[in-house]
């Protein structure tokens, strides 16, 4: 979400502008900014080649927990991995679904179809996950 859109929504939440005004402003933002960027997208967006997972220790806690991890997984391996889900027996998929539900994630693993693969991989390009661990370590998942 762009900074302008965020500001508009904040102003709406604070009651500084009405819903109609917010709608008009948001439409104006939609016509201006994002369209320009989507036009520039095909030139700038590079197909992701690797999925990277890094774990870096907290600078203050580096002596007690100095573990550092850097994993680079080729996208071709991710593709192959998703295709391998076809080999998982249905009973195991049911178990996985149940375990996910127990954790509060309502997702059916069977929904991952090889046909959706390219879409998922493209969407990964916009994703970056940052997690702060219990010992202050930072976990980052992103594509490059």
């Amino acid at each position, binding site marked *: 979400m762009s900074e302008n859109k965020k500001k508009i929504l904040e102003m709406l939440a604070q009651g500084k502008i009405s819903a109609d005004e917010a709608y008009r402003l948001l439409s104006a933002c939609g016509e201006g900014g994002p369209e320009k960027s989507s036009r520039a997208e095909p030139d700038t967006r590079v197909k992701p*080649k*690797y999925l990277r997972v890094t774990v870096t220790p907290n600078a203050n806690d580096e002596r007690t927990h*100095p*573990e*550092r*991890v*850097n*994993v*680079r*997984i*080729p996208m*071709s*391996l991710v*593709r*192959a*991995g998703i*295709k*391998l889900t*076809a*080999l998982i027996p249905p009973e195991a998929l049911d178990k996985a679904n149940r375990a996910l539900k127990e954790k509060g994630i309502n997702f059916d693993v069977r929904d991952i179809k090889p046909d959706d693969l390219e879409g998922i991989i493209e969407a990964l390009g916009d994703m970056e996950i940052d997690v702060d661990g219990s010992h202050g370590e930072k976990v980052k998942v992103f594509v490059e």
Partner: protein
Amino acid sequence: MNWPPMLMHVKIKNEKKNFGIWLPLFLLFPLALVVLLVFSPLILIGIMVLLMLGQERWVEWGLRCLWAAIVSSWALRGLQVDVEGRNGLVQVNIV
């Protein structure tokens, strides 16, 4: 076209030793082919027995697994794993 992995570099470093080795993965492909050719009569007999026993799903599953193993090993090129801990460093790099 995706090229198969050619070399694997494994490096282990700690206070006592500093060890690194390059493994020529490209030499494994002809070896795997030879093993497959040697064992192909046995594999064929196994498939025929399973088909006669009406266990087609195991044949299908086995062939799918074989294909998956080939595809996954082919896609390993570019994999890099670095783990650094209190006791040392382990690096695996496939090129």
